[in-house]
Structure formats: C-alpha cells, structure tokens
C-alpha cells in the first residue's frame, strides 16, 4: 500500500497540518520542532519552489534519521542561494563540491559513514546521506555520477528538485525542459517557438531501469505525499531517488504566489505523474483528484505565453494535452486505471 490518506473530513490529507490530528498523523512540517534544515535568510527568489521543496524533503529526512543526516549539494540555485559567504542557511552538515558530482560525493560520505559504523561495531551507519541538486545537475551534467551511484546501489537518497531549466545561470534549457517552453536558449521565435518537441529525458524512469530499491516522484503541492516518500526512502538502504517538481517563478514567469497552485496543476492535468516504484516496478500512483485541462497549467506561466493570445497555438496546446493523456494512460492516473509502464522487479537487488 502506498500513501495512506488521512481520513479527516475538514482538510485531512491536503493541508500541512490540522490542530485536531493525533500526533502520529501530523506532518513533519506542521511541527513546531521541525528541523528547518534550510533556515530563513536564504536568498532564493520570492515564492521559490526549490527552497520550499528542499526544506520539506530535508526536514522529513532529518525526522526519519533522528537528525543524523549529511547533505551533499550540487552546484545550482539551491547551493548559491543557501551558502553565499559569509552566511549559510543550512542547519545540518552540508557540503557542496561541484555541479556534476553530488551523487559521487555522497557515495564517499556514505562509505566514510559505513567505515565509522563498522569501527564502532554497528551493522550499518546511523548517519544517513542525501544528495540533492536541480534538474541540470541531475538530468544532464551529473547523470553519469548518478547512474554510477544507482548501479552500485550506494546507500544514498538522491533528490532532484526539478524546475525544468538552468535557472541559476539565467534560465537556459536543460534536458528536463518541457517542449515549447521559452528559455534563454530556446526563445519563442521562428516557426516552432520555444523548446523542441521530442527531446528530453525521463530520469525517474532511467532510475527505475537501474532496478534500485526506491524511485518516487512528488510535488511541492502535496506535502504529505512528499514526506511519506522521503520517510519511506529513508527507511530503506541502498540507492534511492526522489524527483520533486518545484515551480520556479523567475524562470517560468509565474506569479510568486502561484508556486503551489502550478505544482498542483502539473499533477492534476497529468503532465507530471506522481508515483512510486520499488526495484523498477511501479507500486503506487497518486490518482488525479480533480482533472484539469493542460491549458489551465500552461496559462499561468509566461514561458508558454506564446501559445496564447493573438497567434494562439492550439495545435501545440493539443500536443501537451496528448502528453498528459499518455501519462494518464501509462500510469493509470485516473481512478480504477492500471499502470502499464515500468520494469519487472529487480529481484537481484533485494
């Protein structure tokens, strides 16, 4: 069974907390004692989805590990806005090395922890490791190291905060940028404006193909689901991957207060399937609750503004809708539908 929704009639599963819930049903974020691993004073833009996603994820991991956590950060927005000398926003042991090596650095940290545990006579390290980065470091420059970490099944939880472009360098296209999106390197000019259709990688599926113990996707719009997945991942050993959808007001040209709404629409349209997989096999999907047309999602973002207005590209919007439909079919995102993608369970990993 996957995420168990809170049966609470007022807001239940959907809000961060609820004063009426028993302690065991409360989210980490609702607690006054949450770690605030990424503390105030960081320099992320107003409404930054990545800053939010990182605190959600790391606080949950801190909670799951009894605050025995080390984080390795790839170069990128998250690193730059959190640790400009002389101030750091992190409250946990944290290291930034390079753009493309966070998974490998994390492997090293995990190895050091394991040796220390063995010297202390423990079967495994109590101190756990998370590596994190944006979509650029994950899907592009760091994919080699990520794949290596997966393949060796190193005891690392890798978290990708996917905002679908190189935001730190000024919004350039990455292999996670959606088609038609305007970026600084895929301008909305010419006959086919924006990013090219038919490109890009699906790193969650690539991760699944490694047969690692756990792969999940999540969004900042569903905190409880995200916390559940981080907590579950932290209860496991070996290589684990969580891909979190984090809107970027700056890069997407969205209102700073729409960050969560856009993430919610990404899931409810079917454009971003939210699921979890174990050993390559999809074991749960988050069903669409209130299905929305892709247009509702696209309209809120200026990076898609060229699809609307006088020279509206209904054909392109329709292609997006087809992408959503395909996700809905593949992952069985509607009630009563079944998953049709994924791999057979990798028995040798268990």
């Amino acid at each position, binding site marked *: 069974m996957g995420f168990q929704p809170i049966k609470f009639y007022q807001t239940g599963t959907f809000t961060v907390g609820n004063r009426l819930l028993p302690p065991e049903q409360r989210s980490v974020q609702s607690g006054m004692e949450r770690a605030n691993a990424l503390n105030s004073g960081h320099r992320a833009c107003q409404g930054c989805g990545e800053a939010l996603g990182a605190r959600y994820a790391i606080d949950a991991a801190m909670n799951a590990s009894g*605050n*025995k*956590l*080390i984080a*390795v*950060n790839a170069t990128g927005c998250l*690193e*730059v806005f*959190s*640790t*400009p*000398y*002389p101030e*750091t926003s*992190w*409250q*946990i*042991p*944290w*290291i*930034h*090395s*390079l753009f*493309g*090596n966070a998974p*490998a*650095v*994390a*492997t*090293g*940290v*995990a*190895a*050091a*922890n*394991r*040796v*220390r545990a*063995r*010297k202390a006579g423990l079967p495994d390290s109590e*101190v756990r490791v998370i590596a994190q980065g944006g979509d650029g470091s994950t899907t592009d420059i760091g994919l*080699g*190291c990520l*794949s*290596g970490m997966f*393949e*060796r099944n*190193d005891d690392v939880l890798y978290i990708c905060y996917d905002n679908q472009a190189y935001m730190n360098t000024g919004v350039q296209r990455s292999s996670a940028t959606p088609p038609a999106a305007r970026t600084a390197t895929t301008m909305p000019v010419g006959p086919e404006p924006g990013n090219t259709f038919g490109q890009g990688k699906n790193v969650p599926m690539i991760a699944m193909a490694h047969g690692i113990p756990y792969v999940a996707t999540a969004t900042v719009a569903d905190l409880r689901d995200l916390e559940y997945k981080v907590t579950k991942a932290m209860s496991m050993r070996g290589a684990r991957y969580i891909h979190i959808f984090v809107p970027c007001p700056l890069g997407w040209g969205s209102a700073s207060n729409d960050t969560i709404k856009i993430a919610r629409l990404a899931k409810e349209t079917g454009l971003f399937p939210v699921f979890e997989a174990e050993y390559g096999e999809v074991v749960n999907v988050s069903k669409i609750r209130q299905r929305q047309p892709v247009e509702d999602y696209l309209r809120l973002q200026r990076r898609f503004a060229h699809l609307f207005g006088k020279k509206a590209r209904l054909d392109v919007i329709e292609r997006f809708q087809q992408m959503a439909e395909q996700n809905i079919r593949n992952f069985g995102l509607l009630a009563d539908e079944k998953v049709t993608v994924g791999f057979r369970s990798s028995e040798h990993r268990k």
Partner: protein
Amino acid sequence: MLKQCEGSHAIAEAVALSRPEVVCAYPISPQTHIVEGVGELVKSGALKDCEFINVESEFAAMSVAIGSSAAGARTYTATASQGLLFMVEAIYNASGLGLPIVMTVANRALGAPINIWNDHSDSMSQRDCGWIQLFAETNQEAADLHIQAFKLGEELSLPVMVCMDGFILTHAYERVDIPEQEKVDAFLPPYSPRQVLDPTNPVSIGAMVGPEAFSEVRYLAHAKQMQAIELIPKISREFQDIFGRESGGLIRPYMLDDAETVVIALGSVLGTIKDTIDEMRADGISIGVLGITSFRPFPITAVRRALSHARRIVVLEKSFAVGIGGIVATDVRMALDGLDQRIYTVVAGLGGRNITRSSLHRVFRMAMHDQLEPLHFLDLEWSIINRELDRERATRRSGPIAENILRDVANAAKIG
C-alpha cells in the same frame, strides 16, 4: 621486510599499511596494478575497515574521495594521464576545500595522440591545482612517500599527489623494504580532520565566496604550501628516525659539491642521470645532479642554496609547456633570480622515449661547453619533423601528422 616485487604492489602495500578507510578507483594504465592490489587486500580482509569502491570514472573517483574525506575518512585513490585530466575539476575542488586525499599519479603522457607510456605531462598539467606534488625516484621512495603523504596532507589539510613514473616504476620488479605495520602506526596517527561533516557539530562546507574574500582564500592556500616547505623535511626526518632510511624531503642533491654543471630532474630518470654523472665524474668532469622531490611546493630557497656554486644548470624535463619550453626550468629560473648562471632545458623521454646514457653524455657535454641551445629536445628525429613541416607548407590538407610520421619512421627503418 624486504620484498622483491612489482612497484605497484609495493605501493598497494604501503597504502594498505597507512590504513586508508575509503579507496576508490577507476582503471587506467599504468595505475591499474596499484588499485587492483589495494582492492585485493580489502576483499581478502587483510586491510580491515576500508571501503573499496569501483567507480564509473575518474571524475567520480575524485568526487567519492572528496565525500569520504570530508566525512572524516582517510582516503586514497590513484590515476594517470587522461584520467587525471578527467578529474581536474574535482582535483581543484579537493584542494580548494582542503581535503587531505592522497593520490598516486602513475605518470603517463597525455593525448592526442593517445599514448600509454611514461612522461610527466599529466602531473605537470596540474602544477597549479593546489595539491602537493611529490615525485618518487625509486619504488622504495614511492612506497615511503605514500606513508609520508598521508601524514603531510592530514597535518596541513591539503591533498597530496605522489607521482611515480608509469611502467618504469609501477611495473618494475625491484627489491623494496615494506615497513612493519607497528612502525607505520607509530609514524602515522589516525586521521583527525580539521573539518568534518558531523551531525553533532554541523558546518556548511563549500560556500560560494565572492570578490570580498576570494583572494584571501587563495593566499591562504599558498600560505599552506609554504608551511609544507617546512613540514616536508621535518616529516622526512621523522620517517628516517623510525624507519632508518632517508626518504622524501624537498630536494635530493648528488655530487653537488663544487659541481660546475648541475643537472636537475624529477623521478626515475634520476637513476640514469646519476649513472651518467658517475661516469663523467670518473672522467674528471665537475658535474652533479639535483633531484626535486617536492615539485609543489617548489622549494625555491633550497634549490637556490643547492645551486649557488654551479655555473650552469641543465633542467631535464619529461614534459614541456608547448609554446615556451621547460616547466621545471621556469621554476628554477625563479629560484635563481638575479644569479648569473646559464640555464638549459632538455626535454626528454616524452611518451616513453628511452633516455639513454649515451644521449645524456652527449647533451651534458654540449652543455659543459655551452654549445647547447636554451631549449633542446633530446634525440629528436629532425628529418621526420622537417619532412612534415615541408609537407604542411606545400599542402594544406597534408593528412594526419601522426600517421605521416609513422610512415616516415617506417621508411627510415627500411632505408636504415
């Protein structure tokens, strides 16, 4: 314990005696036998409490090393040539973060053209990377330098490269005195990191530093290398006290007293040079040799003192800076600033070319008579070069240089 063994094996044993906690490696010739040896020691259980990680690239190898070192583990890796270049970004990062990783560089040429044989182009390409670079003359010294490197790096919080000539040393069977574990333990205390990723005392390592402090950070890196100038001889003496043999240090003078001509070199070629000098001394020629063990930091004061009586210096280098010439020679000139001495650069042994005693005799004698041009390439086949240059002048698309030269070499052999 004396052992007749391959150089790589001796290094594996020395590394294991240093009790590393994390070893990671990606295979590249001629480094392979070293990490294979360490891997076997870990797998067999001979080296306890050590994680051996087979990574997917040299970039990952150095990155894993960064992670484990930052998490407080004594960390070792090894590479060579293209592998060293592939990890360059991480190499600079490791020194910038002050992580005392020890890495063997089994020196090998850089391509293209691809070449697996020895020269110093790989290490020299990293002379500015902020690592300490120690060059071993023999397998005994290479083994000893690894043990010293951990102590040195950890005391300074700086990474150390131990450079040893690929194949010439790594694959050579020699007699090596493998130290006893107790003595190594007495010499090398457990790693006590200056900074560590520790949940009970969290810090943020690897901040972004802007113009307001970047120069200071860089100067402090330089200051640390200057501290190493003091520390390297100290550690060498401590090593001698425990193990009873001289190993390491900044420089290694040989027949230097009153030598009019002094040859400077790094690594295993010092052996051939010493043999040549012995022969020349027998002929009454006033010549000596200065081995540079510590290339980074470059021991300017020690070199200047050692060369103060020399009239001329021949720097024999297994690499060169294309477009200007000697790399080591440039540093030597810095050391001798203001002194009136002739300094010759002899580039030799590139891509595994043999450096023969007869060639050395010839070139040293030319130097003695000041008949050597400032930048000399030892045993260069000028007929091939001139033909190729002619061809290029004649035809724009004259074909690949390497292929042309190989054809010329074959033709020369037939003619010969």
